């Protein structure tokens, strides 16, 4: 609800609670809108928002009558109600429709009360009773809405506490990589490479690749490694062959160099670094 609604609503409530601020003679027919209900036409729209619908308006009117529904109930209410909506009609047609339905119902009730009751109609419920039940039900939920509104409410009546969390750097937040991811990544990149050009991706066993890394790792620690020490007999024939192929591969790609100072002297393996340096030094 907008801000400008608050005042009329408060006034309406105020009026409803007051003991009829303007004297209305018991049973008197009312031909003009009640004083406290009269609104200048330009303020009507605002006032309308104070009511939640035809039932709400009707409830208000009944309360204003100090619940004197018994002696001249429907007639008087109907009168006021129709007076009220005739004002409203000019202003807010779309809203007025709902109120008009109620007016029609009130008019029907009024007419029935006036007409002699035919005997065969006796099965029918008193239309007043039906209306009162509707009003009763509406008022009950109107009250419930107020009760719910009065409940302690987060933000308005209390605050949920969520204190600051200290941040600690934890290593566990590193991304997790699954072997599956790794394999798919390779598959994908090779597929792309195949499509690009006839980039030859030869089948190479990982054991040789791994051994190449091992050999290079050792060479990065010790500059000179004895050739024989790169083989371990425990690995058996296959292992020795893998090591040998790995060394040949490294030689082929000029990553390592093999030196032997003399015939039958120990063969050494060293990184190919110095080779390039020497070449540069000697002009070739």
């Amino acid at each position, binding site marked *: *609800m907008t801000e400008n609604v608050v005042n009329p*609503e408060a006034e309406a409530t105020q009026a409803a609670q007051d003991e009829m601020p303007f004297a209305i003679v018991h049973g008197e027919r009312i031909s003009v809108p009640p004083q406290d209900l009269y609104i200048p036409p330009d303020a009507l729209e605002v006032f309308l928002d104070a009511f*939640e*619908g*035809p*039932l*709400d308006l009707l409830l208000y009117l009944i*309360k204003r009558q100090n*619940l004197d*529904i*018994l002696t001249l*109930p429907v007639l008087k209410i109907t009168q006021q109600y129709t007076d009220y909506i005739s004002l409203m009609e000019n202003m807010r047609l779309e809203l007025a429709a*709902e109120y008009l339905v*109620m007016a029609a119902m009130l008019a029907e009730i009024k007419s029935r009360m006036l007409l002699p*009751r035919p005997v065969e109609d*006796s*099965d029918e*419920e*008193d239309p*007043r*009773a*039906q209306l*009162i*039940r*509707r*009003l*009763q*039900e*509406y*008022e*009950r*939920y*109107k*009250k*419930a*809405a*107020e*009760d*719910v*509104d009065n*409940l*302690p*409410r*987060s*933000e*308005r*009546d*209390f*605050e*949920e*506490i*969520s*204190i*600051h*969390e200290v941040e600690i750097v934890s290593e566990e937040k590193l991304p997790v990589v699954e072997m599956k991811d790794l394999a798919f990544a390779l598959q994908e990149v090779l597929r792309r490479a195949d499509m690009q050009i006839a980039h030859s991706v030869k089948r190479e066993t990982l054991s040789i690749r791994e051994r190449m890394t091992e050999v290079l790792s050792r060479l990065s620690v010790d500059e000179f490694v004895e050739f024989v020490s790169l083989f371990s007999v425990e690995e058996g024939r296959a292992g020795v062959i893998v090591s040998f192929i790995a060394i040949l591969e490294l030689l082929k790609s000029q990553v390592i160099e093999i030196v032997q100072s003399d015939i039958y002297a120990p063969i050494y393996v060293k990184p190919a670094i110095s080779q390039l340096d020497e070449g540069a030094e000697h002009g070739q």
Partner: protein
Amino acid sequence: MDNEQQKKIIEATLMSASQTLNVDQLLKLFVNEVSEVTRDEIKAIVQTLQEECSGRGYELKKVASGFRYQTREEMQPWVDKLRPERAPRYSRAFMETLALVVYKQPITRAEIEDVRGVAVSSSIFKVLLEREWVKIIGHREVPGRPAMYGTTRKLLDYFNLSSLNELPDLVEIKDIDDIASELILVANEEIPEQQQLESMDPPAGETQH
């Protein structure tokens, strides 16, 4: 890990949580720990923590979806002084619609409009659904299969309730009741007694005096 340590862990967790936590969630704090913690132990610790809030500016409250620390209501006027923004206000139409969903769930929009005597704007349902206070819990098997609405735990949490039972009872509107009975008296003079009584009986079960 001793009981004191467990209590501190639960306290820090509930204090820093941005939502309510229930016993099952708190149990997860201690899975795979050497010393197993039982549900009953968690409950006992939470109760101790609740007792320790006595005389403080906050409390450890049990609401529908679990436990949470919150400021005490009587502190709110003070706490509000430092807050520039106001808590949202809801219109009467909004609250009436909400009340009908709360008290008459499952309920369709048409049924709500029937009681209120006026159309309910779509924006009200939009807000109710967006705030997750209300959800569609099924469809009524009538033409058009209209959605039936019900309330959520989140709504109870927001209104500081642990169950719908804690809601205020639907009141019997006395004055109209009186009107009704008086109307019967008057009507009885006009039309045969028994039909009046039938039609005027309040719906069973809802009467409370």
